[in-house]
């Protein structure tokens, strides 16, 4: 009895960690900004070089910031859903056009529709780095105060939206 007790205790202690390890996806990194103010930025807009999209524009309402590019396959995949969200009009979507080129990006929006209130043009990827972006598409949920509430990496879908975003937005609306 006694000789099996110690290994048994060891297994019981380690088991939760092993199970957690199996469930966590190491390719998904947590955002460092959860609960903190979104990193400040000031970018020229995609459509008009003389106008700017800055962090200050995002405060005052709950908003989404979507990091996208024309070279990004996942962005194409989620675009239909973003269009749907934009048509519902419950939450403004701001874009950060990341490491792209302007004519391609404008053409892309003309072809597939433009769900964004405005897109900042982050040509050299500096703002992307400041935001801790590691792969487009990424979608940030920001509070009225401009704090990052949630970050999702990968193409957004209706089921993920219902599960992760809707409850958080409802919480913020209170």
């Amino acid at each position, binding site marked *: 009895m006694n000789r099996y007790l110690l290994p048994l205790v060891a297994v019981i202690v380690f088991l939760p960690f092993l199970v957690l390890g199996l469930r966590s996806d190491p390719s998904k990194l947590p955002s460092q900004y959860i609960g903190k103010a979104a990193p400040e930025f000031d970018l020229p807009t995609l459509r008009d070089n003389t106008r700017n999209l800055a962090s200050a524009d995002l405060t005052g309402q709950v908003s989404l910031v979507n990091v996208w590019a024309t070279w990004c396959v996942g962005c194409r995949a989620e675009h239909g859903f973003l269009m749907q969200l934009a048509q519902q009009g419950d939450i403004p979507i701001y874009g950060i056009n990341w490491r792209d080129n302007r004519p391609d990006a404008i053409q892309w929006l003309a072809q597939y529709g433009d769900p964004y209130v405005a897109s900042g043009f982050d040509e050299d990827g500096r703002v992307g*780095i400041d935001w801790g972006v*590691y792969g487009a598409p990424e979608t940030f949920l920001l509070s009225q105060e401009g704090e990052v509430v949630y970050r999702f990496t990968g193409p957004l879908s209706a089921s993920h939206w219902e599960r992760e975003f809707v409850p958080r937005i409802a919480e913020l609306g209170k």
Partner: protein
Amino acid sequence: MIRRIVICLTAACLAPTVMAIDTGKAFEDPAQQERYERIIAEVRCVTCQNQNIKDSNAFIAADLRREIRRLMMEGKSDTEIADFLVTRYGDFVLYRPRATGKTLILWIAPFLLLLVGGFAIVGVVRHRMALPLDEQ
């Protein structure tokens, strides 16, 4: 025939140097260049996680190398550069995470396990020594 094989093999051996990611030096000063290469060898590429940004040609790796060059030119210290990266990407981005509250377990766990193993060995040996010799 043999000559061809030799040429092919030599070419294959040279390929990695030819395909180096950063062609050309980032810094004129050899000491700075060495420091730059040391830093980028210890930063994880966040999209291609088992590579460092020195070996990766991913967009994000190229961007991070550029940011590190910029920070170095601004005269930032190694710690300040590490802070810049950790603020944005977390401790995970450094191949040698700093010993802070959150990463302390990573640093002490090997020693703890060694200690546990040591105690186990001592326990087993003591137990065996207490057994009568003629049992075997």
